[in-house]
Each structure stands twice: as C-alpha cells, then as structure tokens.
C-alpha cells in the first residue's frame, strides 16, 4: 500500500467524531494486516549473501590470480563482509603463504579495488574483512565485479599451496531500486 496519510486531526475543545477516530485507526490497521510493502520499511533491512567456490589450486605466484567475475543486477548492496577460507592443499601440508581475496569493481575501463581484502594462511580457518571504510563499499545495480584470488608470500618467500578456496560476500540491501 505504500505510505498512508492520516485522514483526520483533532482539535482542542472540539468533539471528535467516532467515524473520524475509526477512520484514523482503520488506515494503519489495513496497512499492517497484509498491505505493507517496501515503502513502509527502512532502507537496508535485508541480508544478501553470495558464495563462490574456486576449485583447484591457487596459482603459486603472487603475480598471478584466479578470478571470478559476476554482475550484480539487483538493488544496491552495502557490503558487511568479504570472507575467504580454503579446505585442501596441494603437496602435503600448507605452505606458510596466504590466500588473499580482493573485490574489484569494473568502472567501464578498468578494475578498481574496493579497498577490502581478506587473507588466510591456515587450513579451514576462515578470515573475513569488514573494513570497507574506503568507498565504494556497495555492490551497485548493473555493475560488474571481480573476485581476485591469489597467493601472497609470507616473510620467508613461501607461496600458498591452498586448493578449494571458498569466498563469500555478505551485505544488506533495501530490495528496491535507487538506494542509496
């Protein structure tokens, strides 16, 4: 039903008519009883989560990466967190290098980092980053994004030998066009 307007306002020293009081009550009762829609809700009340799985090994080179590209077509999403974990390794025990995932946005000419990344070096241990302090921190309607998954050397120069990498994004949305 969207927004409703109160039919009557009462004045001091003026009797309130029963039908006017009833009309004032009927409107919100009718709204609450099954007619609420997105216009009645505050923005960003819905959780959105995306999950990705990267099969096989992460390239054992800091300069290389595995990439997952997706296009976001729904309403804008404010990102709460970007997370990563891996569940297997190649060649025995995990090396000490990190698996790093970074979210990038396609601006029409180039991939632009969204200034958030999460890194994990331990099998099965998830790490998530909620530090999207640098804008943009939205998944914007009809915009293309890329998750870049790469190995990062530790202090000894070891690359990650992680395989089977899971990545997720969680955010909140209004489920309506035009926000923010």
């Amino acid at each position, binding site marked *: 039903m969207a927004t409703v307007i109160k039919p009557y306002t009462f004045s001091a020293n003026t009797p309130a008519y029963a039908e006017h009081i009833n009309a004032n009550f009927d409107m919100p009762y009718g709204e609450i009883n099954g007619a609420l829609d997105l216009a009645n809700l505050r923005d960003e009340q*819905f*959780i959105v989560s995306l*999950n990705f799985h990267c099969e096989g090994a992460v390239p054992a080179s800091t300069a290389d990466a595995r990439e997952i590209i997706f296009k976001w077509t729904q309403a804008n999403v404010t990102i*709460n*967190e970007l997370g990563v*974990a891996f*569940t297997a390794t190649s060649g025995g025990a995990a090396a000490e290098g990190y698996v790093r995932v970074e979210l990038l946005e396609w601006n029409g000419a180039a991939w632009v980092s969204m200034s958030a990344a999460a890194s994990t070096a331990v099998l*099965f241990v*998830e790490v998530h980053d909620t530090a999207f302090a640098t804008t943009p921190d939205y998944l914007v309607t009809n915009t293309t994004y890329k998750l870049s998954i790469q190995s990062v050397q530790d202090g000894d120069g070891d690359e990650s030998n992680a395989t*089977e990498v899971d990545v997720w994004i969680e955010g909140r949305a209004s489920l309506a066009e035009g926000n923010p």
Partner: protein
Amino acid sequence: MSIIHKPHHFVAGQAAVASQVNDNFTTLYTAVNGQLDASNIKTNQWLDTKTFYCSSTSGTTKKYFIFRNGSHGGNGIIKEIGIAFSSNSGDDLNAGTTINVNLYRIIDATAMPAGGMSKLNTASVGASALNTPIVSTSFNSVLTANTAFVFELVPTSSGGSDFNGQDISFWITYAGTIFAPS
C-alpha cells in the same frame, strides 16, 4: 524506528485531550510510513538458499565447502539441505556408489577435518542416481549468526568402483531474519 510505544493511554470517564489523541495516531502513522525495520517483523520470515557446485570428486576423498552466516542477520532456521548430480564420467554411473553431503558447524577450525566440527543434519543425505535430488529436513541446531559452517561431500565406492558422478550441486535453504541494525 524499531519498536514503537503508544504515547498516551486514556482513562474511562475522562475526556481525551485532542493533542494526545493526535500524538497516538502520529506515532503509528510515522512508523508505518517508511520507518518499520527488522524489529517490527517476526524473526525468520525470510527464505534464502545457498547453492554450491563441485565438478567432480576423486576416489573416496572428502571435499569441503565453507561459508559463513554473518553477524548481521541473526540465526537461521535450516529448512533443508539437498544434493544432486547431473552427469558422470565413463559410459555408465557406477552402481551402488553415492555422493553424500553433510552440514557441520565449525567449532575449532584448527582441528578440522578430523574434529572441531559439529554435524547438524541428523539424517543421511546421499544421491546415487543421475538428476535425482535428495534432501533432508531434519537438523539438530540452527544456522547460528556470526558462525562459519562447512559442507562435507563424501563419495562412496561399491564393488571396487568409485563414485563417478560429476557436476554435483548441493544447497541449503534456511529461514533467516532480515538485517537488524545495531
């Protein structure tokens, strides 16, 4: 706006003050006109499904897929987990083999996969035929907020043959709570 409270309560036998009547209405109308939020809506009213894909398995080696229920959405009531596969390697599907899926809550990641996780599905969920989804709706816990979970894929062998299904999809459907602003 969160939970709203009626500003004034009227007493029998006493005239209601017009401004107080107006206040009571205004509070209600303001809330309904775009200020309702998660606190005004019952929990677990929102269905979500997470779907995962695995191209193939090898022998009886288990595979794992981690996801997280973040801190913003509250607990989720798990409705079902399911699994299906849509192709196989070789000419025929190896009879008697299955691909099972289990859902665990991660308790101590450093002890995994031998320990450190608690199984949530109380019934087995295994697919053994092409394009035949198998689901379970029986769980011993919820999808707790701010917690990591892991799907475990368990291929089984039969008569010396390994599971040779491919293009394996599995999923979880749960009733979540919309975002609750802190």
